[in-house]
């Protein structure tokens, strides 16, 4: 059976987001600059002016001012099962500096559930649509709205959702937001529409974290779930790997090499306050939070080798979970917090195992293929996503944990770091495309995949944050 791929560009008229005001949003933490000077004199820290330019370009300036495209790959035939929806330009949105309608369209498209129909036209939330015309365009639903500047400088963003088939008003909302929150307002509208029409909670106003690398500069960035509106949480000349969101979305744990070896840090996203919570002898890595946020699982080599330990969120009360002379790493908690999935090569090559968090005999979970790593669990605990290596190809793979059914969900060959959206409907991962590291999202069946960010810088290790921003 040959597959036909249709590549669809959703052109977004876009202006860079306004910079957040002081005290708002995330704060940049600098890894101690003294370490840079001692450790790597051959790569001096950027002068502060260059650093500012670089940070500025990372946040706002790289993307062409005029038009950006979201690249989506869709397997043909799936369009027939999607919900066709129109989203018209929000009245006065160009004056706000954000394409509200464009963000909503891109969000709904990326979910895989919706197909955007011809949305030309000038409407707002008060105009009653000409339903026959919209039915003629093939729409089942329609969103229209406005984004009007208020006297105090904030924006009044309103939308209305219509059932085109029945000719019914499905409700709407008005949100008053500061300019810096316009993108968030658009995402909240996309969430409300998604929820109203599918019954599932939307993830468009959640956040993701990921690592970027530009030459010898690494950042840990926190962005909207569409990869945009990025703010830098950590700036470093040394590698950063393995970011992990706390369950309440307030902290991120990560591994930083700023002191010359792998150390696990936990950082408060809003304030930038951070603490090295695992800095034992040897390497400290692979942090994973328990669902109640009180415990972390980590990989430590303090007793030799790489073994999995638990510790409380402050880094105390360290106790060992795995007891092998193999490599045991990449722990991840089950939603009930009672078990860990992890990677072990105790059988000769890396496979995924499951063990009680209190310790005990691990049970092997992956059997297909000789190299399976980077487990991620769906929020309901029923599906495992991971990376399978076959020959030289690394592909995101899913396993239904009740039936054991295994499925490859990507068609690229250099995938890493799968992470589930908190509604369990999408997986984000990193892959290599045309010489660049890029972020992708995919539906669980692999049929709708979207690439985020055409910015051209290397991005890796995405991790999807929880609900509740």
């Amino acid at each position, binding site marked *: 059976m040959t597959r036909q791929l249709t590549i669809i560009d959703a052109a977004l008229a876009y202006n860079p987001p306004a910079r957040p005001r002081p005290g708002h949003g995330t704060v940049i933490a600098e890894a101690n600059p003294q370490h840079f000077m001692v450790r790597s004199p051959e790569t001096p820290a950027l002068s502060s002016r260059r650093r500012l330019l670089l940070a500025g370009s990372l946040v706002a300036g790289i993307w062409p001012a005029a038009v950006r495209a979201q690249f989506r790959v869709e397997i043909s035939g799936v369009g027939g099962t999607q919900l066709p929806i129109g989203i018209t330009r929000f009245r006065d949105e160009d004056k706000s500096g954000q394409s509200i309608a464009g963000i909503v369209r891109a969000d709904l498209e990326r979910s895989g559930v919706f197909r955007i129909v011809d949305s030309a036209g000038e409407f707002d939330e008060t105009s009653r649509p000409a339903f026959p015309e919209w039915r003629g365009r093939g729409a089942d639903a329609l969103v229209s709205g406005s984004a009007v500047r208020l006297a105090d400088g904030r924006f009044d963003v309103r939308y209305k959702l219509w059932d085109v088939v029945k000719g019914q008003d499905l409700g709407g909302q008005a949100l008053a937001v500061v300019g810096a929150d316009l993108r968030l307002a658009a995402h909240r509208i996309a969430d409300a529409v998604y929820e109203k029409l599918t019954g599932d909670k939307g993830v468009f106003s959640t956040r993701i974290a990921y690592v970027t690398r530009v030459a010898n500069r690494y950042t840990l960035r926190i962005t909207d779930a569409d990869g945009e509106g990025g703010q830098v949480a950590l700036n470093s000349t040394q590698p950063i790997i393995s970011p992990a969101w706390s369950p309440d979305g307030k902290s991120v744990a990560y591994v930083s*090499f700023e002191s010359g070896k792998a150390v696990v840090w936990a950082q408060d996203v809003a304030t930038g306050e951070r603490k090295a919570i695992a800095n034992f002898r*040897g390497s400290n890595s692979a942090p994973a939070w328990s669902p109640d946020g009180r415990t972390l699982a980590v990989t430590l080599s303090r007793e030799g080798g790489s073994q999995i330990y638990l510790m409380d969120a402050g880094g105390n009360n360290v106790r060992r979970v795995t007891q092998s002379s193999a490599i045991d790493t990449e722990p991840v908690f089950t939603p009930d917090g009672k078990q860990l999935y992890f990677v072990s090569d105790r059988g000769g090559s890396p496979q995924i195992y499951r063990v009680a968090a209190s310790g005990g005999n691990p049970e092997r979970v992956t059997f297909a293929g000789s190299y399976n790593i980077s487990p991620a669990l769906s929020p309901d605990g029923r599906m495992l996503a991971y990376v399978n290596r076959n020959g030289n190809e690394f592909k995101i793979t899913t396993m239904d944990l009740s039936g054991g059914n295994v499925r490859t969900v990507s068609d690229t060959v250099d995938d890493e770091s799968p992470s589930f959206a908190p509604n369990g409907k999408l997986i984000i991962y990193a892959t290599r495309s045309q010489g660049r590291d890029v972020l992708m999202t995919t539906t669980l069946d692999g049929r709708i995949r979207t690439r985020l960010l055409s910015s051209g810088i290397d991005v890796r290790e995405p991790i999807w944050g929880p609900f509740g921003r």
Partner: protein
Amino acid sequence: MMTTLRITVSAAVLGAVLAGCGSSVKLDEAAPVVDARPNPNTGAGAGGARPGAAGQSGVTTVDVGGANLAASNLGRVVYFDFDSYVLRDEYKPLIESHARALSAAKTKKLVIEGHTDERGGREYNLALGQRRAEAVAKSMMLLGATDGQIEAVSYGKERPASDGHDESAWAKNRRAELKDR
């Protein structure tokens, strides 16, 4: 006569091995050319081996022990085969030299950084790099270094020595680096 010849050959072989040179010594060739860096271990008369200078009976003097071992003159990188953390024979002399330097100076410390090539997952490769560093550390401890003098750490695939995407680059990245602390 035979005894002298045998001693000469053994000494030459010993000299070649201890200087980190992997080639075998043939009786009818000049003494093998050793590493081009000045070797403080050799006596004043021998110097670096110059082809032909010592004829067929060249003997390289090796001084062992003593704090005059300048660690910066010893090799600093051990390379590994794909998917392996086994120490290849050709690096054993290098490891021995460092171990002896540590053994001779108990306040001296070393960090061993393990690395992998770019293929494979980041955390798994971090653990593989850790294995490589620990293999070197264990070997040194068998040769006289103490546990407190060495820390084995890993960079996994995060700090390649070579940015290429072929076997020649990968081979340069599968390594353990020895750094003074």
